[in-house]
């Protein structure tokens, strides 16, 4: 059992055409429906929904408050390594970029961790490139062991792993895995990932199934906006999420919305996604799914982030550095992409409070996860 047969039953061009064919009547029906279907979602992300944006935002705000209350979770990325054996046309860590590579040692990881702890963080997202020799599963396991005693919730955004590898990392303290498909457009996926393990589209597509079978507590999905038509890609994400929720029903899910940002050696985005479109998408996901966590990173501008937390977002990062050692060890090394919101975690927490929300630093406890070994 996997998502693949469902994926293969959908043709990219047909999906795209059906989204763009949605009418105002479809949008109105979707807005009024007590429970929304994937067809309703198509209407909500279609160009026909643009005039309904304010109405979508109000509904999205209501639904988010109903489920999550007036709270916003805070998390922070911790880049462990910028070594990478892949070529990705949009990433500063890509193998063909001549940058200094470094991978943090356990001592350095702890130094970084101290800064994050001092800021108050309990939810940390570990990030690496894909270099199985240096940052393979052994390294990741060790990093989890190193950090486990210091944080309540550990997430990971690294290369896709085998099921047994996830089974090994979960008892070592892994709570959440984020794995973005980047794009569900199979042919163009190849163009953006010409070399390295990441060019295997299907291995990546099957990753959430491997995670689900391994029993992960939470997983995050998404695509990278800028590669392909964002509406079509977002529909596939919703389709994937729908399948996963039905199948691995004990797992929690989150969605992220990375838009292409400037980075070393980067290609120009093929498609630009405006702020207005991103708001439309976030609200559409909330209207489709009341339970899913929606996350926004420091890729976005301060103004955008200040306003978006009232529209459906439930978790946000702050103070982020996207280079290994960026917090304490080597603040000047090359980052994966430029961030847009440079405010400190304290400033962000203050902003959240001013918006009428409570910043939540800890929303998990190791006692609830499988016992660390």
């Amino acid at each position, binding site marked *: 059992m996997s998502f693949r047969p469902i994926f293969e039953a959908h043709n990219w061009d047909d999906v795209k055409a059906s989204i763009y064919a949605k009418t105002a009547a479809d949008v*109105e*029906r979707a*807005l*009024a*429906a*007590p*429970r929304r279907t994937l*067809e309703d979602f198509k209407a909500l992300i279609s160009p026909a929904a643009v005039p309904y*944006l*304010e*109405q979508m*935002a*109000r*509904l999205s*705000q*209501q639904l988010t408050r109903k489920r999550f209350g007036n709270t916003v979770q805070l998390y922070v990325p911790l880049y462990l390594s910028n070594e990478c054996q892949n070529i990705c046309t949009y990433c500063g860590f890509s193998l063909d970029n001549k940058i200094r590579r470094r991978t943090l040692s356990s001592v350095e990881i702890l130094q970084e961790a101290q800064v994050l702890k001092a800021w108050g963080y309990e939810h940390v997202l570990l990030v690496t490139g894909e270099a199985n020799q240096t940052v393979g599963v052994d390294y990741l396991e060790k990093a989890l062991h190193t950090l486990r005693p210091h944080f309540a919730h550990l997430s990971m955004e690294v290369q896709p792993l085998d099921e047994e590898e996830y089974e090994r990392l979960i008892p070592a303290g892994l709570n959440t895995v984020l794995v973005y498909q980047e794009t569900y457009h199979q042919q163009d996926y190849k163009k953006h990932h010409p070399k390295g393990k990441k060019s295997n589209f299907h291995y990546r597509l099957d990753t959430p199934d491997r995670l689900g079978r391994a029993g992960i507590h939470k997983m995050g999905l998404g695509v990278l906006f800028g590669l392909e038509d964002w509406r079509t890609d977002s529909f596939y994400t919703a389709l994937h999420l729908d399948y996963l*929720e*039905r*199948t691995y*029903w004990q797992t929690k899910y989150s969605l992220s919305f990375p838009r292409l940002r400037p980075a070393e050696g980067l290609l120009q985005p093929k498609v630009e996604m405006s*702020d*207005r479109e991103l*708001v439309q998408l976030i609200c559409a996901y909330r209207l489709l799914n009341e339970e899913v966590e929606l996350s926004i990173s420091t890729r976005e501008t301060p*103004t*955008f982030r*200040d*306003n978006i937390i*009232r*529209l459906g977002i439930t978790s946000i990062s702050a103070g982020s550095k996207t280079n290994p050692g960026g917090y304490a060890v080597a603040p000047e090394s090359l980052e994966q992409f430029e961030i847009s919101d440079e405010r400190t975690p304290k400033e962000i927490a203050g902003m959240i409070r001013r918006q009428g929300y409570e910043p939540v630093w800890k929303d998990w406890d190791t006692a609830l996860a499988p016992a660390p070994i």
Partner: protein
Amino acid sequence: MKTQPLIIAGRTFTSRLFTGTGKFSSAALMEEALLASGSELVTVALKRVDVSDTNDDILRHLGHPQFHLLPNTSGVRTAKEAVFAAQLAREALETNWLKLEIHPDPKYLLPDPVETLKAAEELVKLGFVVLPYIHADPVLCKRLEEVGVAAVMPLGSPIGSNKGLLTRDFLEIIIGQSKVPVVVDAGIGAPSHAAAAMEMGADAVLVNTAIAVAGQPVHMAQAFQMAVEAGRMAYEARLAVPVAHAEASSPLTAFLD
């Protein structure tokens, strides 16, 4: 417009009205009503039929090619008894389909979730196509799905109560997240209840008492047939829904201008 057929365990049904065979005043009237209903899946209580008698009154009246028999285990109180009854039914009625019913409580006939899950797991392993009768419990439905049942049959309200969809909120969750067909069973007392279940997106309904004890069971069977079809057609055609006006406050999207 033709509504989509329903497929359960590889078998296709054009009618989404499933029926029961209890409580009719005669087997002949039962036969007439079930034929009028258009039903293709008919549940029969193992305890009611004499499987050693090829001329059993009920079975004799069900011998039409369109009727697919669904023996049920009504009367058993434990998983162990259910497995035993299932094996008997399979042999006697030559079908591996089974409506799994375990109710230790003789008063309200409420299903036992713990024993039902246990029995379902065992019966699936034994090669049965299991359709369990259960409370409208979304988590139990997922657990049953995982052990491999072919459909789930949550109750709308207490069996025989004719009260309709008292469990609506839970049925909505079950329908929303199920990977197997959802058959609303028990409590459906009027065609409007059946139509409502179908409009909600239930895959089928099972009706017995409401037809069997109606003043005119044959007419009532037809009324249910029409209601189920209408409800399904409405679901597939996608209902218009009342518009909820969001309260006015300062615009949330003004920052985009």
